[in-house]
């Protein structure tokens, strides 16, 4: 079926191209075959340039109308608001410049289309004009650079103020593991050389380091709302990237070194599920899923919104499915959850396998 469709489409395209060539040819009024542009070519293509300007505006408006809804919902982290406003202002500037320059370019192409006997203006330079359009970008960019750098410095300033929760994100082909620093909030030393799978030491913790005994190793990331989290990222095999788009957070995981990122979640998963944008998004996705379920296709269970950690650095065959659920909850819920987990020391002692 698809093959037939494809062939039909290709044939139609071929016919369309042939017809368009004919149109261009016929529009040349049987003039002697000349492969340089004639007045008529200039006219036709001049008008088409104007039409193309309309097309660019059209596809812009169409995309905004149709696809704004697919964008990420409001940020769920403290620094995210600043990120979003910087993004918004940059986008405003971009669309302002885009609208004007595309207009000038295509309008001039239409307006000054060539005609026999017309004289172009010999206009080689104008230092004042050039100065103006050098200095304007300088000022605008200086503003953006300063704002950006200020925000960047704040985001990347990873410190121990405000009693942050310390969590390690551990990447491997093709899954994530999280390790909480436990009671003492200090992660025990670890290195892949100390991995001992038979004894459930899957992250290579140094068993002689007392800081590690109370560490908690889990496969689902729970974060208490409103408390700063300092992430330490490690990877055991290749490069990965811990991408948490809802929190405007990302950092690569590099074998042989520990990288860091820090943010404060400000909305619990439950609150996020009540966000009108999110409710709509879930509705749309579930409609698609219902249709799939009706057709008996796989991967069609109804979806409940969750924050997610994705891998965003090509890491091999199953890169596209390397994820971990993130749950942001109230302090009480978090305390309850963490109390139900086993510590590394406890596990090592009893030898319970980690699921």
């Amino acid at each position, binding site marked *: 079926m*698809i093959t037939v469709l494809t062939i039909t489409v290709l044939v139609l*395209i071929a016919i369309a*191209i042939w017809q368009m060539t004919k149109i261009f040819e016929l529009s040349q009024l049987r003039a002697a075959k000349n492969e340089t542009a004639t007045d008529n070519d200039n006219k036709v293509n001049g008008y088409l340039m104007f039409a193309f300007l309309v097309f660019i505006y059209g596809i812009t408006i169409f*995309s905004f109308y149709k696809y704004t809804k697919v964008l990420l919902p409001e940020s769920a982290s403290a620094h995210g608001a600043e990120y979003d406003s910087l*993004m918004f202002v940059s986008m405003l500037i971009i669309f302002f410049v885009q609208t004007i320059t595309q207009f000038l370019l295509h309008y001039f192409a239409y307006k*000054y289309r060539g005609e026999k006997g017309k004289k172009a203006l010999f206009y080689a330079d104008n230092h004042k004009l050039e100065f103006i359009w050098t200095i304007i970008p300088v000022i605008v960019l200086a503003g953006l650079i300063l704002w950006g750098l200020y925000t960047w410095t704040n985001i990347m300033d990873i410190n121990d103020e405000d009693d942050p929760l310390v969590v390690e994100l551990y990447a491997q082909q093709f899954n994530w593991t999280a390790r909480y620093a436990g009671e003492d909030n200090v992660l025990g030393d670890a290195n892949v050389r100390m991995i001992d799978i038979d004894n459930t030491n899957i992250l290579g913790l140094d068993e002689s380091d007392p800081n590690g005994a109370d560490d908690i190793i889990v496969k689902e990331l729970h974060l208490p709302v409103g408390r700063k989290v300092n992430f330490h990222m490690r990877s055991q095999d290749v490069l990965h990237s811990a991408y948490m788009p809802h929190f405007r957070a990302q950092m690569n995981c590099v074998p042989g070194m520990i990288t860091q990122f820090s943010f404060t979640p400000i909305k619990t998963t439950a609150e996020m599920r009540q966000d009108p944008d999110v409710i709509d998004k879930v509705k749309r996705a579930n409609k698609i899923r219902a249709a799939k379920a009706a057709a008996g296709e796989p991967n069609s269970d109804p979806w409940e919104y969750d924050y997610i950690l994705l891998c965003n650095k090509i890491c091999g065959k199953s890169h596209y499915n390397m994820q971990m659920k993130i749950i942001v909850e109230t302090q009480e819920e978090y305390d309850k959850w963490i109390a139900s987990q086993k510590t590394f020391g406890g596990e090592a002692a009893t030898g319970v396998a980690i699921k």
Partner: protein
Amino acid sequence: MSGTHEHDDDHGHHHKETFITKYIFSMDHKMIAKQYLITGLIMGFIGIAMSLLFRMQLAWPGESFPLFEAVLGKWAPGGVMDADVYLALVTMHGTIMVFFVLTAGLSGTFSNLLIPLQIGARDMASGLLNMISYWLFFTSAVIMVCSLFVESGPAAAGWTIYPPLSALPMAQSGSGAGMTLWLVSMAIFIASSLLGSLNYIVTVINLRTKGMSMTRLPLTTWALFVTAIIGVVSFPVLLSAALLLIMDRSFGTSFFLSDIFIQGEVLHYQGGSPVLYEHLFWFLGHPEVYIVILPAMGIVSDVMATNARKPIFGYRAMIMSIIAIAFLSTIVWGHHMFISGMNPFLGSVFTFTTLLIAIPSAVKAFNWITTIWKGNLQMNVSMLFSIGFVSTFITGGLTGIILGDSTLDINVHDTYFVVAHFHLVMGISALYGLLAGVYHWFPKMFGRMMNKNLGYVHFWITAICAYGVFFPMHFVGMAGVPRRYYENTAFPMFDELTDVNILITVFALIAGATQLVFVGNFIYSIFYGKKAEQNPWNATTLEWTTPVEHIHGNWPGAIPEVHRWAYDYSKTNENGEYVLPGQDFVPQVVPLQDGEEELTH
């Protein structure tokens, strides 16, 4: 300023040429240019075809296509594309398009064709090196294509081949023999690029004809000259990265590897850093995008001025911005690494330098727009592609402001937003530059004209599809979809993006099919196109003073002397008459007329 030409006027006698010395092991720059172009176009065909395959997978994930089974064989059992080969396709698409099409195909073709012709030289400084450069390029292209057929599959670690993924065959099947061939091919490619670039630089500096000062050079030559310099500065660094990676892979060193546990065992590597590789790679990788775009900028500047029948606006500003872009391009590589684990302070520095590069780029865009203002625009196909270039360059360039800002990069890094950005600003734009150049200089290369109507159809469909593919793609990226995902079905939050992906793929398929119009036109016109006049576009530059029939040494008799810059279009005397009566352009070889003023542009 004049070069010494030892064989200036003795072109009466010719060596007897055989088929092999004329068409295969040719040392003539015009023939080498054609060899580069045709090799580049064939590689382009392969690269674009690959992109259509993986676009189909993205639009209809997991769907079975007989086409997949036919082309990919065991990599698409039952017609369903395998995840490994998906990664191989994106990797090889990137590699082929960036290096083999847009570097060698664009800069190789036009540097060879235009540098000697536009500066007034008999040939390149060294014809032999030039020939070797092409044949090294050809060898590397053959090796790269061969790597598609090795049993474990071609390289699949992304075109940036970051280790450890690219270094460890157990991490990915593509990191076996396929990656070895990739590295060997690239090492040869770099040698080819260096030989070529050194030749271009020497030729431009030493072999300019009498009167051809640097400030009279056409902007195409300026761009190609500066491109060659960036190539010489940055390609050796990639060679070092490739060599170190070969050592890590085959000889047990640990330049880029440390503390690795894979498939149940600890590897011996200790003390290296993948971040070091990223630094080395991007020290070439970023200048590389300017190596790709600068020649296109040069071509567009000349094509635009010629077809607008106006001088390029702000000639000196254009040169200064080429130089500024080239300089800045070597100190911005870190913007690919904001979240690589590099010290965040470096991120601040690279944000600063990166946003600076927007300034010369903006100057260029405004100057092009002013160039067509009040012109007498001749809408030849090359002109359409030039205008299209400025349009996509602006659209794609503006989003660079987002990505170059370390803060904003955090959440769009490695998403489809990046893919949309760089395809518009350096992929599509550079392709437009290449196509503008082909349409414009086709008569010079093959002595015949291309069919303009097929050209118009080619341009308009391509232009619409280019926006159709890459404009909506920004939204996919801002929805948080990472690039290099075999399918997005593992994340319900991306369900509703299937629609966009289908739209993008349909545009891509149409765009791909349309390129066949170009291929047909190109091949047909080589043999049956209308015979070209000597100067079909009424251009001022020196290449149009050579005879249509190619001769060894370019000009019969003495090399012409140059008396003016390359942009005396529609120049008038004080009485409003053209400088040369009845002709709206003054070729560079025409001496200053009585009472004419040579402006210091």
